[in-house]
């Protein structure tokens, strides 16, 4: 069955670009990944079965393209050197020397309702953007692309322990950012 019309594909384009930007954090790379996805979709349209939605199928292809792109970039050494992420700073700021919270987390008011609010998602995306690159990347692979910890370790060539550390830092950073910018807990 090859019932894919190139025009249908174009309709999903802007969604795919936004998806790719969240993971790649670079609009040009995201465009490239989406372009490759659409080409692959047209070439492989016989493999599309009408059982799944077109968007789900396209996102499946896009995920592979994103990973390809990250792999290619990882091979460019200068980009890795630029990653002087000292994220321990965040952890150090959140906890006192005795390991207790410097400012214990306060309750969040009606978090579930936030998910209905478009502005919340803007803040959520901004908080993602603010995280250091590798941290955000690991986190988005885990939660947004729903990859397993093992797959992420492999992709980023890091140990499992390192992977847990990155994911934990990401969650701390995101919590902090949402706390201040959305739930309005002033410290």
């Amino acid at each position, binding site marked *: 069955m090859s019932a894919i019309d190139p025009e249908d594909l174009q309709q999903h384009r802007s*969604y795919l670009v*936004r*998806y790719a930007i*969240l993971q790649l954090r670079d609009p040009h790379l995201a465009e490239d990944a989406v372009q490759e996805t659409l080409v692959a979709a047209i070439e492989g349209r016989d493999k599309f079965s009408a059982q799944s939605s077109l968007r789900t199928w396209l*996102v499946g292809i896009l995920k592979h393209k994103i990973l390809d792109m990250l792999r290619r970039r990882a091979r460019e050494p200068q980009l890795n050197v630029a990653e002087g992420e000292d994220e321990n700073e965040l*952890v150090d700021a*959140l*906890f006192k020397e*005795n*390991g*207790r*919270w410097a400012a*214990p*987390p*306060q*309750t*969040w008011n009606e*978090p*579930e309702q*936030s*998910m209905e609010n*478009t502005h919340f*998602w803007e803040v*959520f*995306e901004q908080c993602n953007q603010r995280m250091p690159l590798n941290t955000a990347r690991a*986190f*988005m692979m885990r*939660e*947004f692309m*729903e990859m397993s*910890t093992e797959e992420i370790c492999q992709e980023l060539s890091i140990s499992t322990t390192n*992977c*847990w550390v990155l*994911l*934990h830092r990401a*969650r*701390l950073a*995101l*919590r902090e950012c*949402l*706390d201040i910018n959305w739930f309005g807990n002033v410290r």
Partner: protein
Amino acid sequence: MLDCKHNTELLSQSLERRITWRERLAMRMHLMMCRGCRNFEKQLAFIRKAARELPRKL
């Protein structure tokens, strides 16, 4: 005694691996006495849920 810093690490790791019963026990003991970490635990679950919802909100 587990401190908040290590407790949050364990809470985060419990989303990644099966933690041992000893770790779970230490975590529960700490959570019983620490409101900050109880809030953190709930917020962690919310963050995961929200991130997984994000593809549908783009």
